[in-house]
């Protein structure tokens, strides 16, 4: 066989191959899993009188089953850039556990939490277990236990010690916040406790009506602080333009104390064990902080806030 013949034959083979096998799009494949379901819990003991203590209970979900139910529409908006109507939907987990027996106790005092269903989609503080009004008043520096017994699941138990309620020292804090000046914040020290300090504008109805929702540079911050320090200096913010407002705007300064469980779960966070940018959601190895027998968190917060003004 001379090389010309061989060349011709190879060309024929190439043509056959190219015409018969192209870069075929890959097919989607349904995933199945045989995960033994366990309870997925978020229990919060709140020392803040404006926030009820609650326990949310779901279960883990297999890959092939219904995971979330559309319960409403938050907003619909048109994007000129995309020439497209966007819909922000409200979902709730499909696998809420509603028949669990939830008990929270401290020493001899035991309180039953009962399931409170959500009636309207905006009731974000429902679809969870709460104590009947007035029956549960958690105390600072107190140990609390949690027990969740749900049919078909392992019992989940939890334990925490509530933090002290923080106190901002109003007398040492200036009444107004200016974004281009350092701002000193003082509180009563609490040993070995982490805190979360935040500042934000209070959007009053009148303000929103006149200006719409605006994001003013330097008018919002969040910091994790050590409550043992008793003091934090908020540095000035670099802003590219002025606020566009001439009169002071109400401002809300809040200090939250956290127990160890809450701090570990929300602040330290999870060390990412697996990353894949082609996943359509985040991954977790499944954390249990302050609880045993399931995934989730049993944590506690205390809170104190003061109102100030934000200078334009």
């Amino acid at each position: 066989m001379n090389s010309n013949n061989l060349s011709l034959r190879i060309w024929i083979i190439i043509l056959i191959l190219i015409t018969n096998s192209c870069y075929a799009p890959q097919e989607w494949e349904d995933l199945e899993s045989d995960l033994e379901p366990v309870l997925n819990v978020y229990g919060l003991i709140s020392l803040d009188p404006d926030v009820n203590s609650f326990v949310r209970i779901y279960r883990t979900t297999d890959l092939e089953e219904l995971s979330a139910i559309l319960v409403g529409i938050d907003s619909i908006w048109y994007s000129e850039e995309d020439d497209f109507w966007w819909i922000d939907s409200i979902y709730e987990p499909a696998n809420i556990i509603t028949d669990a027996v939830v008990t929270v106790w401290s020493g001899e005092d035991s309180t039953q939490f009962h399931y409170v269903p959500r009636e309207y989609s905006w009731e974000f503080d429902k679809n969870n277990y709460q104590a009947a009004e007035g029956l549960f008043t958690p105390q600072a520096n107190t140990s609390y236990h949690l027990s969740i017994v749900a049919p078909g699941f392992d019992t989940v138990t939890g334990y925490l010690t509530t933090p002290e309620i923080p106190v901002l020292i109003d007398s040492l804090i200036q009444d107004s916040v200016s974004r281009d000046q350092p701002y000193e914040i003082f509180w009563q020290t609490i040993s070995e406790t982490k805190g979360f300090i935040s500042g934000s504008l209070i959007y009053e109805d009148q303000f929103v009506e006149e200006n719409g929702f605006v994001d003013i540079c330097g008018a919002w911050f969040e910091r994790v602080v050590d409550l043992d320090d008793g003091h934090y200096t908020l540095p000035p913010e670099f802003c590219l333009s002025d606020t566009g407002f001439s009169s002071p705007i109400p401002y809300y300064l809040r200090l939250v104390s956290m127990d160890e469980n809450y701090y570990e779960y929300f602040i330290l966070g999870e060390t990412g064990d697996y990353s894949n940018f082609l996943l359509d959601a985040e991954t977790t190895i499944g954390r249990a902080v302050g609880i045993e027998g399931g995934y989730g968190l049993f944590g506690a917060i205390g809170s104190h806030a003061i109102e100030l003004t934000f200078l334009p």
Partner: protein
Amino acid sequence: MYLVHRYISFRIMQHYSGMAIMKKLFIVLSLFMLASVQAQETATISGFIREDATGEPVAYANVFLAETALGAASNVDGYFVITNIPAGNYDLRASMMGFGQYRAAISLTFGQTVRLNIRLKEVSILTDEVTVTAERQKFERTIESSNISLDIREINAAPAFIEADVFRTLQMLPGVQTSSDFSSALYVRGSTPDQNMIMLDGISVYNPYHLGGIFSTFNTDAIKEADFHAGGFPARYGGRMGAILNIINREGNTERITGSGNVSLISTKGLLEGPIPQWNIFKGSWMISGRRTYFDKIIDLLHIPIGSSGDNNGDTGEQIYLSFPYHFYDYQIKTNLDIGFDHRLTYTRFYGDDILDFEGSDTETYDNGEGSTETETTFGLHWPWGNHTNGLTWRWIVSPTIVAKTFLSNSRYRFDFDFSVEEISDYSTIDSTEHYEISYGLGLYDIIKDNTIETEVIWKLDEQHSISGGFQVKEVNFDLGMGFNIATLDTTLNLQPLELSNKTRESSVFLQDKWDISPLLKLQGGLRVTDYSLHDSLYIEPRLGLKYIVSHNISLKFNWGRYHQFLTTANSPDETLRLVDLWMGIPEEYPASVSEHSIAGIEYLSPKDILFRVEAYYKGFDNMLTLKQGELFSENEGELEVTPFNEFWKTDAYAYGLELLIKKSTGKLKGWIGYTFARTFYKTPQAGWYAPNFDRTHTLNIVGNYNFTNRAQISASLSNSSGNPYTPIIGRIYDWEQYLSIGSFWNEKGSYLVGDKNSSRYSSYFRIDLGFTSKTKELFGLKYSKYYQLINISNHTNIMTYTYRTIIDRSNGNKLGVQRRPVPMFPLIFTFGVKFEF
């Protein structure tokens, strides 16, 4: 010798600062040289063996005195030395498969030293003369396990992806694994690519890839040989604990100017080489090669419209054309200057860059009747990354039995990501005009500068001992940072949220002895001692190689060694594709990574010079570093701070495996069959033991090349292996996010629950590639050949990763189950090209 050993041991014990050791080493080397000036009672023949047509050194040629047991093999420089020759008349012969035999009658007297420049003529017709193949020479003389050298013919023989690539060929060898088709990085016996020392003519190259690893930076046209040590390498090499790859470039034609070129679908390569005319005692050669991709130029020339810039009044602006703002290029220069017989200076330079470079602008106008605004936005990305090396080597033949080489080199790797946006706005009304300017810039950079000086002295003491020793001082500057700036007409803000830099120095001395204890037993013992400037302790690395020759065709080998590494990469261990590496020296607070290699093997070389090699290995690793990923905060001395780039998990690991290689290097059919059984396990405090994502348990590679006429050559390769590990998703779970400011909300966040790290594997990898070359044609006086390549001819779907989605029930909007779809590696690809030479 005893005194020399005593001297070295004593001095190392006394003074172990790096520079002190260097000074003492010079004294030791002087002792070596003095010892060589011993009275010669016998004669010596030394010299170089070169190809007659080009002057290129011929490695592994057999030089012997007929009807005696005296002989030697040429090394990679073509140098040989035969010592202890009694006075008399001899018939000296030099031979190498593919070349005619050289014969010369030589008369030797007592103490005489004869130097020869032997030229071997290439022949295409095999004669009846007994010739020795390179395979036979390596089999007989190499003590090291796991060492394989590929010459340019073998590199070019395997089917290639678009163009021949030395890394792609190495990936087909036993013990070498790959993470995906899109990467030419080498994972060797459980070691990651950053643990491999990649050298170009002895100079370290830090990120030897183009296009995120799809191509290696080394232009095969310029390569003479690739010397690869998968493990158990001798004391001469250090600083890495994986593998050693030394790419040796061609020296350049010493006889005439020649050239070659290669036009493929993505790039054009060219090479020119020629002699430096002899003047007095000076003579030399030069070689220059270069390559550039041209996809960017082709796309520009095609003028493919993809739209037009416009404003919000509907006016049509300038036409926008498709562009491909990426290209890479590299070039290499090598010059040799022989100064008499004893000295040679070699200068090598490599420069390669990948460049992603684009800019654009858009103008928007808005007029509401009361005023008008015109905003011009310009943005640009300039992102070059690549390597730059310079090396100067001085080779000094001190005496026929002592050769000294001194390297002076610098190697720089850098990437410099620079993104900027500038907005200029003019607002005009009847009464006034206002002008605004603002610009944003983001920069991320990583620069490594490596300056190295190294001396190696090889002393052939007698027929039993070949001793080599030397020192190496490597100073590396690491500079990793991120910068951000905002500027307006009156204000400028510069932020440097990341700034990591350190300067390290590795000072090493090494000594090794290749000792033929008996005709059947050979030993190679060595010691390397390194001082790392950021640590207080000395790092001692003993190396041992044993070879027992069972028969003329069978040998047993055992190698053991300890290896330290003083730098690491800060890349995510789970990333699917890697564009660049982030290098840094091992920080002061972490110990140096260390690995121990134990390798046992048996080799059989058939009478037809087919090599059969079986090797088993075990590698243990300690103190490796794995980048912590995804952790937002970390505790540092009680303070909470954002986790920086240099937070690592201390990682231990081990790897073991069994490898089989059958390699045929001569005849019409050449190639190899490689099978690897390999297991690798890493352990981090957080994940426990797991198989890293490059681990493939079974790998079978078959590479063949058949010349069925002088003008036609077909090549094929088959690769079949276990799939790579990945972390599966096993269910869904809710995490919570907090919103604590003016209100208090804790929202559910749907997440995937993952199983144990890398506890699942993708389906098996399978790929067959074919190549065909039709050669020896002429066009306008140029010899040229055409080549065609088919990659993955069965169009097998080899999975690189999966993409996932949640099914939405269209009737009610509910979220149902989860689906996944493979992201495949190479599909069926057809490429072709033309090579030419003159």
